[in-house]
């Protein structure tokens, strides 16, 4: 029975591998295997600053952290209050502007999620995630 169990499990594991491989090939352009965000969707602090007024900054951190301090003129848009905050963001958004989303640090996930939802649900283009997040912005503030 034990060998039968192992044999059955191996067959199932092998069967699942085939469509998974096909799916990985199909989605090869939509997800990076190296970093959570494709390199083309990341932006450095220097580059995003150079965009000046052509960029809208989006703060994806919790509201308390946003209230404490944030990038000048940044708009609060986080997942906790997505439905409340999205309309006011869209009022200020323009197709000519690039959107730079940041959260607290390089390892945080909120900016990736907000950027993903802006691209997917709000169908926006030119949405970027700030490399290093708020921590990196603070280092180069002065």
């Amino acid at each position, binding site marked *: *029975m034990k060998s039968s*169990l192992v*044999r059955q499990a191996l067959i199932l594991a092998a069967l*699942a591998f085939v469509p*998974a491989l096909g799916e990985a090939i199909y*989605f090869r352009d939509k997800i990076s295997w190296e970093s959570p965000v494709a390199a083309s969707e990341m932006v450095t602090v220097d580059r995003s600053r150079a965009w000046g007024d052509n960029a809208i900054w989006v703060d994806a951190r919790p509201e308390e952290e946003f209230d404490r301090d944030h990038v000048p003129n940044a708009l609060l848009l986080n997942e906790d209050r997505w439905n409340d905050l999205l309309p006011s963001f869209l009022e200020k958004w323009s197709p000519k502007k690039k959107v730079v989303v940041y959260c607290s640090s390089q390892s945080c996930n909120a900016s990736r999620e907000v950027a993903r939802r802006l691209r997917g649900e709000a169908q926006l283009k030119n949405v970027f995630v700030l490399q290093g997040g708020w921590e990196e912005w603070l280092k180069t503030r002065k």
Partner: protein
Amino acid sequence: MAQNTQVKFPWRVVDLIVGAIFIYAGAIKVLDPVLFANDIDNYKILPWTIGVGLAFYLPWLEMFCGLALIVRRLYFGGLSILIALVAVFLVATIAAKVRGLDITCGCFGHVSQNWNFPAHLALDLAILGALLALSFRVVSGDRLQNAV
């Protein structure tokens, strides 16, 4: 014979329900592997590359194992894999909670995004209980001839 069928019927229903749950959970994740990869990454346990690989692989494995329960082919293999998957997932969820990570489990895509921790835990324990009960039935020999 009729009595035998009556005894088996409730377990067959459990097979179908649990199998359907895993097929549904897998199908949702197959449709959005990017979201699932991010959900795996949120646990901060695995490197991103491995998480992406699992995001493509695990949903199909769940679906095949769910299907195995429903059609009763490769039954015990499917059952064993699902028990292992749910057990690993439970440990990872509890570990994430202990580490203070605010995670969405990703079990059922966006449907489960707003579930709280106790809801996750209750559902996972219920599924694990059902899988273990089915497994016990097989081991105890009641359905060994048909299942294995």
